[in-house]
């Protein structure tokens, strides 16, 4: 391959391919990602920062953002702990059915989020497999903030696991073995030796999970009940306001979510040395 490219690369000492490829990349990204995002910002500020601010200060909008943050926080807390535990078990022990478990954990990435939503309804609903047993005790998970957390857990299930496990897989065992030789218990070894070297993977796994959960729509619209000011998350608020024809209100929250994910991914990118993520 390189033998074909090399003669083309330099025209009278000027590297043609370099600026050409960079500009091709940017031009390709323009209509696909950059311009759509830019339109949100252009539209949002076209009527001045004041109307943006007013739209943002609506009590339902603030509530929706808070609800998204809180439910995503709990889903992230659970999935990071679970991902850590699952990664440890599946990386340190070899057993029959291990690969089947790994595949199952990764499955939610490939399942449409709407399917995730109605799968939860079918399980927890009053006629559902589990809901049927809980309903007589007055326990109704669906159409509550709890349902939003469950949906977030489902759709972000493999993310933290997926970041933590490869790090555990490639981690040198010699430190853990040394720790065991000098009489440390398994727990001490995990706490003082294994965990510190996973610090970066845990933080980036958590950020990825959180960013994905905050933006979740498909499963949430089915299980939350979508009540403004009670069970309406930020993405549902955007959808509701758009349907209502209040595009400014929808757009203000869209800007907040876009900035938010930009922030999260910037942290992931620029702090990667500290986080030891390759």
């Amino acid at each position, binding site marked *: 391959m390189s033998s074909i490219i090399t003669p083309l690369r330099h025209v009278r000492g000027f590297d043609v391919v370099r600026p050409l490829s960079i500009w091709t990349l940017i031009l390709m990204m323009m209509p696909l990602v950059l311009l759509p995002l830019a339109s949100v910002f252009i539209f949002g500020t076209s009527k001045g920062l004041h109307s943006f601010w007013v739209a943002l200060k609506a*009590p*339902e909008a603030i*509530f929706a953002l808070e609800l998204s943050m809180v439910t995503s926080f709990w889903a992230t807390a659970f999935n990071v702990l679970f991902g850590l535990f699952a990664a440890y078990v599946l990386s340190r022990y070899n057993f029959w059915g291990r690969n089947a478990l790994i595949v199952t954990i990764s499955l939610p990435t490939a399942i449409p989020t709407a399917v995730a939503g109605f799968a939860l*309804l079918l399980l927890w*609903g*009053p*006629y*559902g497999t589990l*809901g049927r047993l809980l*309903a007589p005790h007055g326990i*109704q998970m*669906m*159409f509550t903030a709890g349902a939003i957390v469950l949906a977030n857990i489902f759709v972000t299930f493999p993310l933290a696991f997926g970041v933590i496990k490869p790090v555990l897989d490639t981690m040198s065992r010699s430190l853990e073995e040394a720790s065991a030789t000098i009489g440390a218990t398994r727990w001490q070894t995990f706490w003082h030796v294994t965990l510190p070297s996973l610090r970066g993977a845990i933080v980036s796994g958590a950020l990825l999970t959180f960013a994905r959960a905050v933006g979740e729509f498909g499963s949430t619209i089915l299980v939350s*009940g*979508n*009540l*403004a*000011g009670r069970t309406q998350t930020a993405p549902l608020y955007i959808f*509701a306001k758009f*349907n*209502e024809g209040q595009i400014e209100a929808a757009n203000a929250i869209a800007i907040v979510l876009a900035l938010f994910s930009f922030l999260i991914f910037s942290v992931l990118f620029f702090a990667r040395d500290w986080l030891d993520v390759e």
Partner: protein
Amino acid sequence: MKESLEKSVYPGFSAKWKAEHGQEVRFTSSFAGSETVTNQILQGVGADIAILSIERDVDRLKQGGFVTADWQALPHQGIVNKTPFVILVRKGNPKGIRDFPDLAKPGVQLIHPDPVSSGGAQWSVLAIYGSELVKSEKQTGEPDQAHALQTLRAVWRNVISTPGSAREARTQFETGFGDALVTYELEGLLMKQAGTALEIVIPRATIFSEHPAVVIDRSVSAAKRPVVDAFMQYLWSDEAQRGFVEYHFRSITDESLNSAHKEFGQIEMPFTIDYFGGWSKAYAEIIEGIFRDQVQRRK
């Protein structure tokens, strides 16, 4: 609407026309939500007649120049049939719901489509709010708006889900969510017929959804005019009205048809959109002014 027209009204009119004029009448019809049908006509689908579920859509056809005659000059101001808003509850009515204010009782869970996106949900808000006004007016001579607002607020606190459409609300109710659903009596009867275990509670005072039929004057050719006019008149005949009742609509012409029909409960104090002064007024004052600004908005 599809069943009642295709199984009763169309064959009835065809037979009548054939007997009187010796010609076959063939109907081509399309069924969709009232708003969708209106949009299709506005975009040039050449329909001769439209039966709609909301007066606002007739107004849109008028504004577009598709309906030029005074459609309310027809019998019963152009309304062909009606169905009241009722409360659907689980079999045996375990929560003891008898009227709209019972929906506000602690522990009752209500499924209510979102009034922002669903026309059926707007009717339901008008039914609950109007019901309290009508009852208080009957009792004291004055409609008690503060009480009606308070009831609507209290009922809304028991709403556990606001799906985007009345159809989605029905699906949620059918899959076991909620203790109660406010919807058209027609819908409740169809759900019952489809095998859902439910009971229909008739509120003491409730609103009728009334359905206008209009001639799309712009599409009707001079040759077709007589048959179209004859069909319009036929809609208010006893035969057609009986056909509507058989398929769960209430007759607009003859209350005795309704009271003779076993599946319809008696409504003590029925009212219509006219009670609020028509749709556009009801929408601005009740849906926006009361519901959106004073019930839904968080303080």
